[in-house]
Each structure stands twice: as structure tokens, then as C-alpha cells.
């Protein structure tokens, strides 16, 4: 009889990812509602790493060990996790929806003839049944999802869905158990991670950021937003598609694969508000969104919103600010 919740704690080179502890919080809350024990699993070469996770209130921490797990590879991780899941036989496997998990966890689930309930923003329990909620259509719609079939159920949670500081710590350290596993052939060799040469603009220091999205329609219209930025002494930035198209250099991209900024003012012009963009700017003090779609997810985090055409808004806004500045 499968039992318990197993949460995957991710680290790179020994440093745990904060979203791992968000996943711990999610698993603990699920465990509390279902009356099920929660254990964590850490992949690596020795148990020292796992002890870092043992401070949390957990039934135990399982250290899955093999020399081939020194560096992350999807082949190595899928093999090791498959064996761990089979050995521990949990009802739920909970993971953070990180780039690393996206890379190997679908392969892991496929070994069980399944897929992941991926990128969830919530889980709720009623009468012992779990409903997961995930965002579809790039954040525009929510879907409630239930799992079918035999356990284990694999689910990943979006960064920010739960708070890491809500992960409960235990009175005394949880027991750490070593689980040596077999790992088969690893067909890829990772090289050292790196950052591109120093960015030409450091947007993290800007007080005001005027960000444009696909709603700007053409490269020739960027000047409009630039004028507004100049007037406010701010920097221009963009969502990913603008940089992908080569309209602005990549060091002006905001989001999960770009820069993370916390300016005093962030004006989003024609940006829909996909989660990968929001993670890069949601902590700005004042957020303004201009979008012609009233349901655009960007409005969910905006302090001020204008539903309308940015080509009508920008010239008037620029003029009015000029007037008020005198």
C-alpha cells in the first residue's frame, strides 16, 4: 500500500534551491490535510548534503547516493529517482517546477507510464481527494486537475506558489537514511555553468523601468516608450519575445531567463504577464500595467491598470507628466 509524500529537494553544487523549500511547504500542507507523513529525497554522492534538509519537520530525509550523481544529468537523476520512488513507494511525489525538474521529471514519470501534474499554483483537499490547480494559456486561465489511476502521483509546484518561510522546522533533526542506488548509462556530459559576459546595462539599479512587450508591435515604436523612459529618468526593458526578435538586446530582458528587478516604478506596456516575466518584476514597489485585454494576467499584480491601447496611452501620459513636472 503506497504511503506518504515524498518531496524532491533540488541543489546545485551543494546549494539548495529556495523553491525546494517552497515544495517542502507544499508537501507539508498536503501531508497535514491528508494525515500522511512527509519525507524528503536528496540526490548526490553522500549524506552530508541531506542533513541540511533534516532541520525541516519531516518524517525522514533519504539520501540517494551514487558517484554519477555528483553533477546533474537527466539520465542519472531519472535512474536514481526511479529507484528511490520504487523503494519508498509514496502516494505523491512533490517537486519544485524548476528548469532542472522540467528537464528530468517527465522522464521519471514516463518510467511509471505517467506524466506530471506540472507547474501547479495550488492544491486543495476535500474528503481525502486532492485537486491541483494549474495555470494554462500562459496564465490567462486556471484549470482544476485531478489525478487518475494508481499512485504515485507526480506533481510540480510553480515558484512562488508556496512560501519557503512557511516550511515548518522540526524540534530535532529528522533522521537521514542513505539509499545507495544503481545508475545506468549517462549519455550526456555537462560542462561548467556560466554567465554571459558582463551585461552592458544593470537594470537592477534602475529606479524606474518602462518595459515593453509584444503589444508594441514593431521595433519602430520603441522610441515612444524610450521618450517616456527619458522623461522619467528611467531605463527601457522588455519581455522575452522583444529580445528574441532582436528589437532590444538580451540584457534588457526581464524575467526568469533575464534580469530580476525591484525598481520603485515598473510600467508594463503591452505585456501579458506570463509567470516567467512576473518572477522578474513582481517585487517592484509600484507596478503600472497598460493592456487592451482586461483579463491579461499582468493586472493581477498591478497597482494601477489602464485597459486600453498603449498607442493612445503613451503620448498622453508623456504629455501630462511633462505638464505636471512644469
Amino acid at each position: 500500500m503506497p504511503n506518504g509524500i515524498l518531496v524532491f529537494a533540488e541543489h546545485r553544487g551543494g546549494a539548495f534551491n529556495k523553491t525546494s523549500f517552497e515544495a517542502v511547504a507544499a508537501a507539508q500542507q498536503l501531508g497535514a490535510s491528508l494525515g500522511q507523513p512527509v519525507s524528503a529525497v536528496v540526490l548526490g554522492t553522500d549524506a552530508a548534503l541531506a542533513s541540511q534538509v533534516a532541520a525541516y519537520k519531516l518524517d525522514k530525509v533519504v539520501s540517494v547516493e551514487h558517484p554519477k550523481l555528483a553533477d546533474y544529468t537527466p539520465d542519472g537523476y531519472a535512474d536514481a529517482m526511479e529507484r528511490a520512488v520504487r523503494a519508498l513507494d509514496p502516494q505523491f511525489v512533490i517537486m519544485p517546477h524548476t528548469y532542472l525538474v522540467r528537464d528530468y521529471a517527465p522522464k521519471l514519470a514516463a518510467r511509471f507510464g505517467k506524466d506530471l501534474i506540472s507547474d501547479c499554483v495550488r492544491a486543495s483537499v476535500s474528503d481525502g481527494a486532492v485537486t491541483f490547480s494549474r495555470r494554462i494559456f500562459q496564465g490567462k486561465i486556471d484549470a482544476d486537475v485531478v489525478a487518475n489511476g494508481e499512485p504515485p502521483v507526480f506533481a510540480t509546484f510553480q515558484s512562488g506558489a508556496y512560501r519557503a518561510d512557511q516550511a515548518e522546522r522540526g524540534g530535532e533533526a529528522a533522521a537521514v537514511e542513505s539509499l545507495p542506488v544503481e545508475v545506468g548509462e549517462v549519455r550526456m556530459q555537462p560542462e561548467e555553468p556560466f554567465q554571459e559576459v558582463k551585461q552592458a546595462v544593470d537594470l537592477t539599479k534602475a529606479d524606474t523601468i518602462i518595459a515593453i512587450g509584444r503589444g508594441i508591435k514593431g521595433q519602430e515604436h520603441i522610441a515612444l516608450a524610450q521618450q517616456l523612459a527619458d522623461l522619467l529618468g528611467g531605463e527601457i526593458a522588455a519581455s522575452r519575445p522583444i529580445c528574441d526578435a532582436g528589437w532590444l538586446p538580451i540584457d534588457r530582458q526581464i524575467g526568469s531567463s533575464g534580469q530580476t528587478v525591484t525598481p520603485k516604478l515598473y510600467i508594463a506596456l503591452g505585456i501579458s504577464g506570463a509567470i516567467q516575466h512576473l518572477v522578474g518584476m513582481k517585487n517592484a514597489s509600484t507596478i503600472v500595467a497598460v493592456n487592451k485585454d482586461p483579463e491579461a494576467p499582468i493586472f493581477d499584480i498591478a497597482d494601477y491598470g489602464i485597459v486600453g491601447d498603449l498607442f493612445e496611452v503613451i503620448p498622453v501620459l508623456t504629455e501630462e507628466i511633462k505638464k505636471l513636472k512644469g
Partner: protein
Amino acid sequence: MKIIVLMKQVANKDAILRINKSETWIEEGDLSHEVNESDGYALEEALRLKEKHGGGEVVVCSLGPQRVKSVIKDALARGADRAIHVVSDDTAQLGPYAAAKVLSEAIKDEQADLVLTGLQSDDNGYAQTGVILAELLGLPHATIVIEVDASGEGLRVKRELESGWYQWYAMTRPALLTIQSGISQIRYATLKGIMAAKKKEIKEVAPNAEALSAAAHQRITKVYFPQKTKQTQFLGDGDAKAGAAQLAEKLRTEARIF
């Protein structure tokens, strides 16, 4: 080099979405569609690899109803050599395992050197189909790929990690890669390409029945617009210009920006 590119058709990004009567999906009837964003980049990468490495074949494969033919025809016009259309009317509730299973049955006999997919679909957003497909085909994979070097016997791929970090992987070939948007600039279809596409083969196949009917491991019970959590002050009440004037005032008096 033989390269298979998986391309999905999704709702147009600018489409106004409405929820269907049973609240289980969106209203599909009057929607316009386009190619999934990252899949367009996957096709571009396949065409460039073919050109760079002295030929071979680029085969496009799409699973969906007849309307996905427009994605296929556009890919052929841009330079793909032929296409496989796995025809199925109802794919909206197909989970990523089932979709990958159907797609693997459709392409497994092709023995491709490379299979390219997008990294994520813009509608379901599972971010899984490519990786599961790799497992089903027995191929090594890399996800969120932003550069491909196929000059050697194996592959070297540059993967995007979070917050501006990257990593190169050396891997064996054949392989499956999930491509990130922005890997290169997408070409336009030329008139010549559009004409040439008319003569290219589009093979229609039925989805493998067993794969299609396999019980879904996840089922959508309800869809709805997300609950707003923040109290946004909406300005202008539908009048963009009035909103802009009010905003200038608020930025000065409330947010104290200037």
C-alpha cells in the same frame, strides 16, 4: 541528417478566450490559431542544421484536427521537406504522456538523427511532451536548448538555466532537443517556397488507437479565470486617454515618482 520537428497549433496569443459551457476548456468555435511559439524556432533550427551540414531531410509532424494543416503548410513553405499529420479531432484533454505516446508511434520508424520539439506549449503548458517522447524513443535529451553544435559526431548543446546562467552539454546522437524561443531569427516563407510546398508530401496517419485511448493520468475538472489577488486601481474606465491623464496625476501624488 534527418531531423523531425514536432509542431503544435495553439490558440492565437491575442485571441480573447472564453470558457465553454461545461467549464472544462475554452470555447474553440470562433478561435483563430497559430503555431506554438517555440515550435517555430525548433523548425528554424532544423532548417539551419540541414543547410549547414550538407543536406538531409526536415520532416514536420503535428497531431491535431484538420485545421493544423495550416501550420504544416506554412512549415513546408519555409523549407521543410515533408510532413506527417496525425489526425485527431479531440486532443485538448490529451495529457502529455498520451500525446507523446501517439507521436512516438507516428515517428518511431523514421529513425531520425535528431528530434526537435518546442520547450512548452502555449495552451496546456505541460513542458513535458518532448522529454517523455525521448524516453519512449529511447533517446537522450536536453531541454531549453538555445544553441546547437552538430559539427562533430555527437552533439554539443547550450542549455539555458535560470536567471541568466547557461551550460553546455556534450551528448550522443541520435537525440531529442527541446528548443527555446530566440535560438535564431525565424525566416519568412518566400513566394517560391509557398509554390514549392504545394508539391510536398503530407502523409495523414491515424493515431495509434491504444495510445490514444490509454486512460489520462490527469483530468481537468473545471477551468475558470484566475481569482485576482491584488486590488488594482483601474483608471479611465475604458477611456485610455483619460486613464493616462489620471495615471500621471497618481504617479505624482500617490506613488510620488516625480
